[in-house]
């Protein structure tokens, strides 16, 4: 077990997560290009996920072997899953709208 983190670190992480949530909700009300809003949402999502896994779940204090196994396996499988599905979805949409 690693040394316990300071309580302050948890509440800084909480503030960051809350601020990102507000930014994400603002994309619904603040007028902006759809592509920019989409990029902002995806970046905020990834940053939030990183904050939770790194600080709340203490993954940044674990050995690289565990980090690579957990993050690598999940991200790789998810990317392959989405990577294979997106072209299929687009093809069905083209077929439907023709």
């Amino acid at each position, binding site marked *: 077990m690693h040394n*316990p983190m300071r309580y302050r670190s948890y509440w800084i992480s*909480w503030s960051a997560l809350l601020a990102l*949530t507000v930014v994400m909700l603002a994309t619904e009300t603040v007028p902006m290009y759809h592509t920019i809003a989409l990029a902002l949402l995806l970046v905020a999502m990834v940053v*939030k996920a990183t904050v939770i896994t790194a600080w709340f*779940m203490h993954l940044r204090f674990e050995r690289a072997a565990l980090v690579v196994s957990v993050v690598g396996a999940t991200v790789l499988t998810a990317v392959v899953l989405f990577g294979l599905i997106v072209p299929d*979805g687009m093809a069905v949409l083209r077929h*439907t709208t023709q």
Partner: protein
Amino acid sequence: MTTLHAPEHSSPDASWEGGVSPFGVSWQKLMMWFFLVTDALLFAGFLASYGFVRLASPAWPDRSHVFSLPFIGFMTFVLITSSATMASAVGAAQRGNLALARKFVWLTALGGLVFLGCQAREWTGLIREGARLTSNPWGVSGFSAFFFMITGFHGTHVLIGVTILSILAARLGRGRSSAAGVELVGLYWHFVDLVWVFIFTCFYLI
């Protein structure tokens, strides 16, 4: 007769330096991580199939008309806050202050209950408007099917988490749980929060 000798100078690349614990964590914590990875893939499957149907559909209901986004924002706030109290419980337990850890665990369970109450309210509202697993008033049948499946599975995880947190708090009160136990439950609870990050973004906002 020949004798086998180990090479005097073995290559560093060929040596095993992981020791008896290559991941540097207890087997309980390692198993919890492996469970969380498999559970994450379950939700990845859900969201990937949702993405497929969403991309393949020429039209999709406007979420801001179906959901109350400020209300969903409040639910997100509750879950994030409960994650922070859970992290504080882990910190307190690791410092040996199990009484304080127990208080934070109860606060986390309370956050989970508030989240479940909000979800029940949201579900009730949509069901009253006519949303079902197979149909809904917004035109695309897959919309409500994915909504109930994805948020339902997540809500079930929250319910299981609240149950485990309550058991943990009771055990801490009797001195039957340790800092390692609090950390394991903490990992599960943060995972519930992590999954919500993806659901919140992909289902409610994009």
